[in-house]
């Protein structure tokens, strides 16, 4: 609880004349899962990409507390150091698993690649860990040599999660990790993510438009509208006692089951 793991300060990103995200500030503490909710086009994904160093903001800064090298400014790192950070201390789970996986190589190689990036060289150990992670994300070990092109959407997403978590990251960015999947597949992935985040004491920033997903996985919520954060707080408080007109409208729009 000593200092934040990730700290965003007045992050602003424009595309041409349009402001995609405006003046966003927050601290993420170790072990916290922060949800970013809002409708399509509210700037959620742009913000996530700025936080993860995939986009360079036009204003503001993002600071990250590394394992051993102190606090760094994410956007002032060299490209090589940023990539290293992204492979070792961070994970990034894309909505479309095809963007987060290498579709042309086997599942085992997809998992092993992250391990090799952090220095693993022993083939047997890498394969052993890959098999272990296949089991943890509930994929049959005998599918290890198959390419993800032969996997279902839900399996691909679970493989992408395994690929991201095998190198023991501290911070995981997730962009609609259950978007576009059947509800039964979605439930399996939510359950898996819940267990992993809790068991590995991960910190995470999760973008979703699904308030049910946010309630299940996050501790805190930021509600975005038109590129700005209109409300933030404890997840259950924002959902049960929303203050801002837009949040009240969002919460009132959930279909009861």
């Amino acid at each position, binding site marked *: 609880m000593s200092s934040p793991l990730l700290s965003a300060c007045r992050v602003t990103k424009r595309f041409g004349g349009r402001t995609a995200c405006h003046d966003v500030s927050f601290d993420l*503490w170790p072990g916290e899962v922060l949800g970013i909710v809002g409708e399509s086009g509210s700037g959620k994904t742009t913000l996530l990409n700025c936080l993860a160093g995939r986009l360079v903001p036009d204003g503001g800064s993002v600071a990250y507390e590394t394992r051993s090298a102190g606090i760094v400014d994410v956007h002032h790192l060299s490209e090589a150091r940023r990539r290293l950070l992204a492979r070792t201390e961070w994970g990034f789970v894309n909505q479309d698993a095809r963007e987060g996986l290498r579709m042309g190589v086997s599942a085992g190689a997809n998992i092993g690649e992250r391990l090799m990036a952090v220095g693993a060289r022993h083939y047997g150990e890498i394969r052993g860990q890959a098999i272990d992670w296949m089991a943890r994300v509930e994929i049959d070990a005998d599918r290890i040599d198959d390419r993800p092109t032969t996997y279902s959407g839900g399996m691909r997403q679970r493989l992408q999660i395994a690929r991201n978590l095998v190198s023991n990251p501290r911070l995981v960015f997730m962009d609609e990790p259950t978007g576009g999947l059947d509800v039964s597949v979605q439930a399996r992935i*939510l*359950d898996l993510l819940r267990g992993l985040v809790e068991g590995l004491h991960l910190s995470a920033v999760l973008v979703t438009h699904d308030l049910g997903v946010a309630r299940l996985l996050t*501790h805190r919520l930021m509600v975005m509208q038109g590129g700005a954060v209109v409300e933030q*707080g*404890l997840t259950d408080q924002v959902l*049960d*006692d929303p203050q801002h007109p837009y949040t*009240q409208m969002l919460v*009132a729009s959930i279909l009861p089951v």
Partner: protein
Amino acid sequence: MTSSQPALRVCGLAKSFTVHAQGGLALPVLRDVSLAVSPGECLALVGPSGAGKSTLLRSLYGNYRADSGSIRVRQDDSWTELVGAEPRTVLDVRHRTMGFVSQFLRVIPRVSAVDIVAEPLRRRGADPAEARRKAEFLLGMLGIPSRLWALPPATFSGGEQQRINIARSLIVDYPVLLLDEPTASLDVANRDGVVELICQRRDAGAAIVGIFHDTDVRDAVATRVHEVIPPASSPPVSPAGVSP
């Protein structure tokens, strides 16, 4: 637990709701609520339906955001203020000090009853097998048949879900417990099991605030009552006076 210092202290608490879909209609609910609960006490909130008992309880837990006033919880031999606190402060208080039993279980897809109950203990670093044993003990004590333990409770009856919720909230020995109608949909036999658990907690030194509509339950567990005054009978408040 030897001192009579309160575990929870509320001063001048106010809470209103602003409904933006109704043109910013302000609904004042709580006004100038003050109370204190010491270890070993169980304070029953009483008052007519709509008086704001649940709103008060949810505000104490930080589930509703208070407009003004103070809610302080005794933790690590000092007071932690919850009104206006950072989310992580509230989460820390919920994690270590304050438990909440609501009327309804929020089921988690695919997770078994026993794991749902054991989770708060596991999250505090308890050995998973030990957490499971304690969860099974509580489920047994609350009369949940063992054949149900490994099933996700989505399809359980209302009374079974409520008892799973109670077991989940009581598996950790929280120094402060908030109970919202913990026996609402239970039959007499199961109700008595819950009453016994609550009394055990109270006598072991928990400070409890609860809503108990059943007068037999209230008489059995409460050591004091606190009357919640309905907003309509409070002095009129101008909307400007209750805005945060």
